[in-house]
């Protein structure tokens, strides 16, 4: 290793996080414990992180930045508003479907819309029953369960990095796709498994740094590779120091 590489490595080790560093939210909490405050007083890395947070929270545009900021804000407003990305709720879908009908707004309108929906469902069911025995006309996957199954472990606070993911078995599932995510949704690792558990490779487990939280979820897939059910996001947190 060259001198410069060694120097870089030393600086990274000296300025980077250590095993004693508490989770960032504890560091940044106004109610930080005395122990966390003492750590903060002597840890270069944690001090730098907290200072960056303060910089983020208190930042105000300089006069030279005002024009760019106005442009960015206008651009963000012009682009699809953030709520447009949210999946529509049942209420919104009903409003969307029946908005053209001359129903009054409010509960009465929803009640009337509900009656119309019930009638449409009844007609749909009777048509479907009349076609029992016929082959399906579509090769779309049958999502037999829109509900969810449970991601069992790891979950909650852990004292050591987990070695395995474990979840509920889904009848009819041919494989499972497991994703490990940062808390901001960035995918760290993913893997496919034929059974309801999977080992975490040692190299991957080494990246599950103490003091940080991670999330994971599982998608059950059928023989054709179509997702038939998913778990909720499960969260686990490896404690920096065992409590």
């Amino acid at each position: 290793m060259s001198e410069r590489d060694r120097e870089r490595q030393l600086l990274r080790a000296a300025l980077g996080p250590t095993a004693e560093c508490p989770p960032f939210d504890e560091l940044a909490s106004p109610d930080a414990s005395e122990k966390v405050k003492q750590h903060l007083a002597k840890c270069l890395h944690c001090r730098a992180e907290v200072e960056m947070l303060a910089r983020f929270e208190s930042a105000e545009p300089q006069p030279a930045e005002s024009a760019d900021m106005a442009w960015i804000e206008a651009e963000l407003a012009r682009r699809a508003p953030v709520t447009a990305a949210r999946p529509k709720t049942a209420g919104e879908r009903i409003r969307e479907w029946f908005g053209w009908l001359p129903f009054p707004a409010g509960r009465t309108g929803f009640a009337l819309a509900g009656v119309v929906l019930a009638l449409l469902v009844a007609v749909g069911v009777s048509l479907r029953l009349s076609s029992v025995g016929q082959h399906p006309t579509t090769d779309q996957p049958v999502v037999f369960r829109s509900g969810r199954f449970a991601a069992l472990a790891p979950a909650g606070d852990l004292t050591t990095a987990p070695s395995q993911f474990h979840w509920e078995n889904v009848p009819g599932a041919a494989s499972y796709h497991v994703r490990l995510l940062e808390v901001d949704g960035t995918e760290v690792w993913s893997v496919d498994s034929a059974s309801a558990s999977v080992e975490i490779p040692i190299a991957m487990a080494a990246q599950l740094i103490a003091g940080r939280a991670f999330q994971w979820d599982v998608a059950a897939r059928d023989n054709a590779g179509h997702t038939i059910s998913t778990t909720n996001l499960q969260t686990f947190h490896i404690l920096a120091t065992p409590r």
Partner: protein
Amino acid sequence: MNGFMGLMRDEELVARYLAQPGSPEADACLNELFQRYRGKVALWCLRLAGDREAAADLAQEILLKAFRSIASFRGEAKFSTWLYTISRNHCFKELKARAAAAESSGDAAAIEVADQSPNPLAQLESASSAQMVRELIASALSEVETRVMTLHFVDELPLDNITRLLQLDNTSGAKAYIVSAKRKLNRAAEAWRSRGQRVQK
């Protein structure tokens, strides 16, 4: 409704949103929340990215990411801390990727050219080197130098981005701080070694 929401804490707005997602009140809570932070996220992105088009893209990605994962916000931290973490991680990751794609690792070369001094820091040996360097940094460097070194060596941010993020207004920006910090550290390491040799004699 907005006047009333303007008085609510961020965490209350999230809790109200999560209690009834999809309701008009929940949407209003979400709008209020993003209204409060859109400017901060945008400014953070502008200072890091350096141009408004890239900043708008980054800010949009961050707000979308925050929105999509808002259910994971458990109220254990402040909302601003949670959003900062997303902003920080997303921007740092994107900027590192862009720097790698542009092969703009000329930063290291620029520092080397500017700093041809001997390098006693790299000659420190023993398992406690990192702790020793920590002590040298704490005693020899200013807060700004430490901040610049952390962003460069730990977060691997390009020098230009560090200059803008920390609003460094000297001529050479972050590069000058790193060169100066390394000289100070090397002097401190040399002094420490000399002291050790004297003690051994």
